[in-house]
């Protein structure tokens, strides 16, 4: 077969992102009715919003908002060093039974892409943004046990050192109970 007769490239078919790396596609989440301010410094604030619970875990969004004064400064900074400022923002979830889950890849088991890890496992779907802020989506594989559930972030560049907030895990468990199937027979 000549080069010019090569078949058209086709994306890999049949691959499915494993269940432990994303929310179930076939469900409408139960919404956890909280908005969380994890930390606030003179320059930035870190929020957790959009908490959607499923029987298999919890999805949420981490948002960083710069102080409006910072926004002006960063917009006019030709070096744009803030582009890399979010690289050292890490999040840890702490459960009532003493277990912890971090979104730092070094805390993930080496085989997480091919073998189902033991919950809790906090996967990070990546993020994006600009000088106006940053947004990233996270997936917690496994629901928390009843009791306090703490969200803790560390972010030296944002002047936040182990700053967090606690909620009652029953809010998550109740929301997971409200999740419904998109296709009832599936």
């Amino acid at each position, binding site marked *: 077969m000549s080069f010019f007769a090569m078949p058209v490239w086709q994306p890999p078919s049949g691959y499915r992102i494993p269940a432990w790396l994303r929310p179930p596609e076939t469900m*409408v989440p139960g919404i956890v009715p909280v908005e969380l301010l994890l930390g606030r410094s003179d320059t930035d604030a870190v929020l957790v919003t959009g908490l959607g619970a499923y029987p298999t875990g919890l999805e949420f969004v981490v948002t960083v908002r710069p*102080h409006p004064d910072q926004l002006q400064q960063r917009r006019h900074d030709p070096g744009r060093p803030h582009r890399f400022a979010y690289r050292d923002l890490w999040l840890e979830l702490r459960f009532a039974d003493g277990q912890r889950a971090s979104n730092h890849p070094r805390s993930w088991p080496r085989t997480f892409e091919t073998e189902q890890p033991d919950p809790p496992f906090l996967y990070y779907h990546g993020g994006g943004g600009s000088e106006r802020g940053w947004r990233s989506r996270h997936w917690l594989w496994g629901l928390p046990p009843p009791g306090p559930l703490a969200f803790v972030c560390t972010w030296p560049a944002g002047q936040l050192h182990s700053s967090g907030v606690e909620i009652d895990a029953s809010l998550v468990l109740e929301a997971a109970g409200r999740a419904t199937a998109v296709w009832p027979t599936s």
Partner: protein
Amino acid sequence: MVPGVVPVALLVARTDTHAVLVDGLLVYPTGFDFDLAVRRDPARPREHRHRPRLWDDELRLEVRFADGRSADNDPRRRPRPSGDEVPAPPVLYQSTSGDDGGHVWLWGLPPPGPLVFACQWPAEQIPPSQAELDAGLVLAAAARARTLWSDQAS
């Protein structure tokens, strides 16, 4: 600001193969944002496009207020104010768009009454479909929004 959350996710459309959700509704005094999430039945094979995306291929969304005003995600209809001119709400701005949905900002809060999310996606055989939300949930969430820094208005 720290937004107020609307504690519901809406199933706006569902066919045998696709579903469209409105999820992650976060409300501020000036408007609200949300995720437009496309779900596919994983039991069915996914088709891949081999041509550039055109507007005719896109998932179309319209938000309707109880007083008859509406806004949609057709970029050709988006107002283009000049200078300091503020567009009359509602204005719908979809910041990201793709096969899995997108992220939407709606400038303006709805009046009390039903708030309708309507969509259609001819390219994926999703007919005109809609779901309603009590705008009171959005207005109550707006009242819970709070400023991040006391020295700033927003």
